[in-house]
């Protein structure tokens, strides 16, 4: 799978099943975009437990903060995102304050189906206007999909008025061929299942203009020879105990990982038409920034961005 088209994208939506490392990939991807001279915003979506802070080494707020040359980061937290949206919808600051001061309207906004999703998408779209590239660390894939899907369902609900207009604008942003979903998967059955499900739904609803990218994270490329496998099996069956068994277990561990990688790559490849990009595990579980650096270097290889250009990380 060729990742170079990512360097022309305006909006990259990173998601994946929980625990796949999507935040790390979002950050690495943003670093690569910036390294290639693009003014880039790395964005997370109302996370109560900010995940970007340790990666960028500072507190990420609603107002974009500078991380490195050409790279900024923002956290679309509530209620700031809502305030920005209201300003856009009703124009006047005083009216916005009246709305926010009214308990009934507050509850209404909390309750209107999809309003939070619309407000968030709208904020993302505004950033797309201001940067060369926006990389968003979306919620886990199930929630991420409903976030995008709101642009479809909202049209049936809001049949006139500025909200409808805005929904139509958001659809245009999503349908741009330079808007793409970046899915992070792991070589595990459940994760691959969920990734395939997300791909199927994306295709069915044709929400995004660009074709999706899939990376298989923590994937050890297969390297055991047939003879080595045979010998590993014989040794495992020989009834060895203690330290010997522990060495064999370590070996079987890596063999099982290799097989899981082959299987995951095969299943994803069948749907994508090309094999997914494999990203090997970081050398020993390091600090978050070390893992991010490793991921950026690996992705950079597929995007033609050499390691030395990734100065800030």
């Amino acid at each position, binding site marked *: 799978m060729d990742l170079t088209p990512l360097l022309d994208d305006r909006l990259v939506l990173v998601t994946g099943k929980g625990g796949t490392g999507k935040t790390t990939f979002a950050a690495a991807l943003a670093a690569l975009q910036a390294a290639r001279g693009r003014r880039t915003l790395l964005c997370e979506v109302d996370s109560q437990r900010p995940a970007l802070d340790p990666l960028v080494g500072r507190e990420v707020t609603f107002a974009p903060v500078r991380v490195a040359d050409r790279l900024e980061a923002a956290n679309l937290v509530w209620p700031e995102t809502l305030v920005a949206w209201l300003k856009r919808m009703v124009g006047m600051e005083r009216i916005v304050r*009246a709305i926010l001061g009214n308990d009934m309207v507050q509850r209404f906004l909390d309750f209107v189906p*999809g309003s939070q999703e619309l407000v968030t998408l709208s904020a993302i779209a505004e950033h797309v206007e201001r940067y060369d590239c926006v990389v968003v660390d979306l919620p886990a894939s199930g929630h991420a999909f409903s976030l995008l899907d709101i642009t479809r369902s909202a049209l049936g609900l809001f049949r006139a008025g500025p*909200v409808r207009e805005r929904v139509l604008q958001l659809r245009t942003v999503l349908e741009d061929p330079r808007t793409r979903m970046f899915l992070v998967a792991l070589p595990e059955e459940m994760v691959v299942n969920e990734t395939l499900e997300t791909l199927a739904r994306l295709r069915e609803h044709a929400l995004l203009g660009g074709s999706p990218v899939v990376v298989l994270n923590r994937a050890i490329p297969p390297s055991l*020879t047939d003879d*080595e496998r045979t010998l590993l099996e014989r*040794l495992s069956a020989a009834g060895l105990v203690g330290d010997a068994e*522990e060495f064999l277990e370590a070996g079987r561990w890596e063999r099982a990982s290799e097989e899981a990688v082959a299987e995951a790559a095969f299943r994803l490849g069948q749907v994508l038409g090309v094999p997914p990009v494999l990203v090997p595990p970081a050398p020993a579980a390091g600090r978050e920034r070390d893992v991010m650096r490793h991921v950026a270097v690996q992705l950079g290889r597929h995007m033609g961005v050499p390691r030395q250009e990734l100065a800030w990380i």
Partner: protein
Amino acid sequence: MDLSAWLKDTRLVVCVGSGGVGKTTTAAAIGLWGALQGRRAMVLTIDPAKRLANSLGLEQMGGEPTQIDLAGLPEATGELWAMMLDSRGTFDALIAQVAPSPEARDRILANHVYRAMADAFAGSQDYMATEKLYDLASDGRWDLLVLDTPPVQNALDFLESPGRVVKFLDERVLSWFTAPYEKERVWGGAFLAGTSAFLFRLLGYVFGKEFLDDFAEFLQVFSGLYDGFRQRHQAVMELLDARSTSFVTVCAPTVSSVEVARFFQEELARRGHPRGGLVVNQIHRVEAADDDADGVLGEAARTLGADLQPATAARLVARLGRAHARLRAQSEADHALAARARAAAHGSGGFYQEVPRIEGEVHDLASLEVVGQHLFGDAEEA
């Protein structure tokens, strides 16, 4: 205190944590433990791996309670049941339960805003999970319920989800939004004077008048359901706060899942939930004294590999040495993270349990029992 003692008087176990940390497996193992203790256990799970369904002897797990065949475990004197959360159907079923009449039910099910709202809530499985939980708890067929919650980033979402409908739909909201439509009401105009009238018109402008009309109709119909929702919400909150409810936070030795676990622990403490504990799954264990693969395995490899390609034994042994070294590094990192998670463990009396990574997938009841032995701390030390 170990998990076994901890769960002795527990009737509801809520497993929380981020995705991919073995939460579903932990929930299933707790359910199986219950059955082994002679209890009638029900595991309510969300989208389990097919193999887990298979491990419970099920072709596929459905939205109805299914009893697991424990014939292979004669020592299990209780029962084990499982069901999967069907979030689509749950909300409609809930409406049917709280609707005062079949007419009210049909009107609400057909309303535009209701359909959108039901879809939105169905998407949030956490809400449905708590609703289903209430049904199961009231059923009386089970004396141990284990809830495998959806992987939410945010503990608040899960704990507060039952309140979302209730929070919005109190009488004041109902009258605020429906008053403008009750033309015969003399005081309606006065009620909506000033700021309220202005804001109402503003919402109509922003969201479109058609939407506000749909919305008001929705509220008018829904007002009859309000009491039902409120009672249910209270009952669910009482259930979650009860002394017989335990929260088990599950994490794996990864930075992000440990952070989520710490966050959960803090939230539970802040909310005053009295009973909780922490399980750290998937910890790599290394006991071998050194990385001298050749000394330990060289001879056996050369003997058993005599008929293979000449260098195979040497290459494999070297490879096992490297694999073991990686395992050791991993193990050290795992333990460091586990210690970090433990430091945040909830309260003073909360339990803490580490579960080693288990070779192969959990694919049958026997391997689930192995997980359980580690979880309940009575696995034999190797």
